[in-house]
């Protein structure tokens, strides 16, 4: 069942001379983990803003085509209605945080859902623990580091337990191990609770392994859409400026030299190492 569906979607910001996205038609199935990537300025963030109705309700501008998210026509439902179904983690956490304490920031969305006190307490603690900021809960979100602010923004969205989570480069300020932990948490929610995840990322070395579906955009258009192993394995992908994982690149280089490796493109170093162990050990025996 599709939870996000766009048909020929185009959008131009007010005062801009050309559209930021044009003719975008994609379908995201329930429970998928989708990775959206593409060169800087290609329209990834703009597309995310459409998923919860920030476009067109907040940004105004001109939206054409169709967009349905969680069975609702986004153009006909305000962002506060969409927010019950779609949680959006912004690229810049400062744009998202405003309360006097981290705990209040995380609780804010829940107050708006009209939950009881006990349920709210439970969900806030759960989200603070998942993102590893429970001990910071009484601090102001504006006095912690950029990486910690990103955790707060993620916690605020997780606490809402939406069906769809959209994350726009959510860990760019975090160190790699912290980033990996956050991605693991999100992946767990996806696998265990069936939450649909849409992740915008440039760093495919860190994230490709989680994705079951990848969308690559360039200049406002979708240029590839499908299975990550097929798409990241294609030469054209690299040419438009997508930084494919190094393990995938090394695999391509070795295949080109005629090394006999599995035809399934690896997305992580572990997968490629297993292939290599196979061929190297065969040689040892021979």
């Amino acid at each position, binding site marked *: 069942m599709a939870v996000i569906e766009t048909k020929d979607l185009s959008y131009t*910001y007010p*005062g*801009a001379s050309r559209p930021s996205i044009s003719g975008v038609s994609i379908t995201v199935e329930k429970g998928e983990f989708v990775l959206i990537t*593409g*060169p*800087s*300025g*290609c329209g990834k*963030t703009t597309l995310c803003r459409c998923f919860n109705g920030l476009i067109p309700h907040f940004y105004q501008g001109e939206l054409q085509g169709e967009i349905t998210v969680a069975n609702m026509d986004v153009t006909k439902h305000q962002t506060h209605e969409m927010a019950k179904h779609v949680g959006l983690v912004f*690229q*810049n956490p*400062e744009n998202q945080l405003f309360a006097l304490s981290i705990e209040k920031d995380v609780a804010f969305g829940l107050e708006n859902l009209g939950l009881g006190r006990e349920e709210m307490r439970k969900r806030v603690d759960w989200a603070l623990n998942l993102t590893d900021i429970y001990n910071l809960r009484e601090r102001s979100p504006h006095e912690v*580091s*950029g*990486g*910690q602010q990103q955790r707060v923004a993620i916690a605020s969205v997780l606490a809402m337990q939406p069906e769809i989570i959209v994350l726009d*480069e959510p860990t*760019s*300020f*975090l*160190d*790699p*191990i*912290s*980033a*990996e932990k956050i991605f693991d948490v999100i992946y767990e929610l996806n696998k265990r609770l069936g939450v649909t995840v849409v992740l915008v990322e*440039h*760093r495919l*070395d*860190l994230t490709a392994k989680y994705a079951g579906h990848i969308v690559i955009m360039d200049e406002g258009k979708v240029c590839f859409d499908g299975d990550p192993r097929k798409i990241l394995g294609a030469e054209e992908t*690299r040419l438009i*400026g*997508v*930084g494919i*994982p*190094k*393990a995938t*690149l*090394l695999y391509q*280089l*070795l295949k080109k*030299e005629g*090394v006999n490796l599995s035809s399934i493109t690896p997305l*992580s*170093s*572990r997968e*490629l*190492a*297993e292939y*290599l*162990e196979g*061929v*190297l*050990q065969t*040689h*040892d025996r*021979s």
Partner: protein
Amino acid sequence: MIEVEDVHFFYSNQVEALKGVSLTIKNGEFLAIMGQNGAGKTTLIKHFNGLLKPSQGKVRIDGVDTRKTSIATLARNVGFVFQNPDHQLFCETVEEEISFALKNFGFEAGAIEKRTDWALNLLGLTQYRKTSPFLLSGGERKRVALASVLAWDPEALILDEPTIGQDYRQKEKLRQFIVQMQSQGKTVVIVTHDVEFVAECNPRVLLMKEGRIIADGEGKDILTDPEALANSSIVLPQVAQIFTYLSSLGFPKNIIDVYEAKAIILKALEEGRE
């Protein structure tokens, strides 16, 4: 030359962000500072242009003690690009943003125009000359912040997380630009979590943890030291990960470059065949 001598730094809330840091960065050196969030990386680099002055110890830029000079004087020689471009951008158009510092430093009108054009072109921003920086994407705003500093051609460049929001092509351009700066004898210091970018550049790498330097050396050696990396919350670059998995097969350990990796594996296959 940047000399840091046993620097301690306390923020007003008594948090000791630097606990005795010493290092020397020579002219023309390319240094990447890496480490956990809150390790003191940004605090350290803010000492390089006098934004912060040490609570104890000394920082000297080309022999001048930063406590004895002004930020304005230091800024002419040491350009600083912040992690979050929104902390740095405020003009109405990209062009004004880039020419702002040039005007402040008293460049002539002709020079301002030339340098602005050069910086716009270098960072692929020419088409946005008249656009408001706030209409641009996160990655593009980051490049505007960088362009506005490059335009005045400082002797040393300090970049806090320069690769955030940048795609592969932009990163490659940044890498080439840094190499070019080095060949002109200029110093480049970056703070980054982007281990793959560092692996491609192979600069001198400094690892920090809890206000101290815990490792300092060639990228190739530091980025293949699993213990030091784990200590500073960094994952191995993918190529190094692959060679770690294959460690029982007797490969060298300090490999971070994809093309070097390819050559080594092909050679091993070749030898296996004989």
